[in-house]
């Protein structure tokens, strides 16, 4: 069963420079919410940004990961500047 830390690690490992905050918002280990900040999103539509994150998990989305609610942003659009 995936946990928020694993999901965070996998997103950050797959998307260069990404910072992810992940929470399990039902506590059930299958509904997650992630905010991902990455330069890699620059110039991409929201759809394309979310696809980049979904692609990290492939068929696990809808399977072991029932839901992964996403908010994606670039460091320049993030409400609080990242530390990098």
């Amino acid at each position, binding site marked *: 069963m995936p946990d928020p830390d694993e999901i965070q690690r996998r997103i950050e490992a797959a998307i260069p420079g990404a910072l992810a905050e992940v929470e399990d918002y039902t506590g059930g280990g299958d509904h997650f919410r992630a905010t991902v900040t990455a330069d890699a999103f620059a110039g991409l539509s929201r*759809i394309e940004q979310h696809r980049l994150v979904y692609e990290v998990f492939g068929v696990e989305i809808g399977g072991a990961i029932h839901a992964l609610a996403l*908010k994606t942003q670039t460091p320049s659009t993030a409400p609080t500047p990242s530390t990098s």
Partner: protein
Amino acid sequence: MSSQPEPLPMIGREPHAAPANGGEPVAVAPAAEQSNPIRDAIAEAINEHKVILFMKGTPEAPACGFSARTVAMLQSLDAPFAAVDVLPDPRIRQELSAISNWPTIPQLFVDGELLGGCDIVTEMYESGELAQALL
């Protein structure tokens, strides 16, 4: 076990009395000869409806919170939309995701293009972009 292709279950949803297509239910009968009738029927439905939502359950009885929220946003904007329940046959979801390259449900299409799932639709609703996109 033989599995004959079944008609894609479709529900026409027209919140207002007589918009463009007269509120007729959406019915798609896939041609039995084609290699992938479900995918073809989905693609056709996407092209034929300005606004079409693929969801779990129906607008009257959504079967998932994300689908329910998306329906509520569309209804609050008084936007007529067609809706397809993906639950009756797992192949609907499978083929839909193959077409859209999007793994989750709901999926909202406007003018033949994937606008997004619940998260993106929510962001667009809050920013006013959804109302613009539905014009």
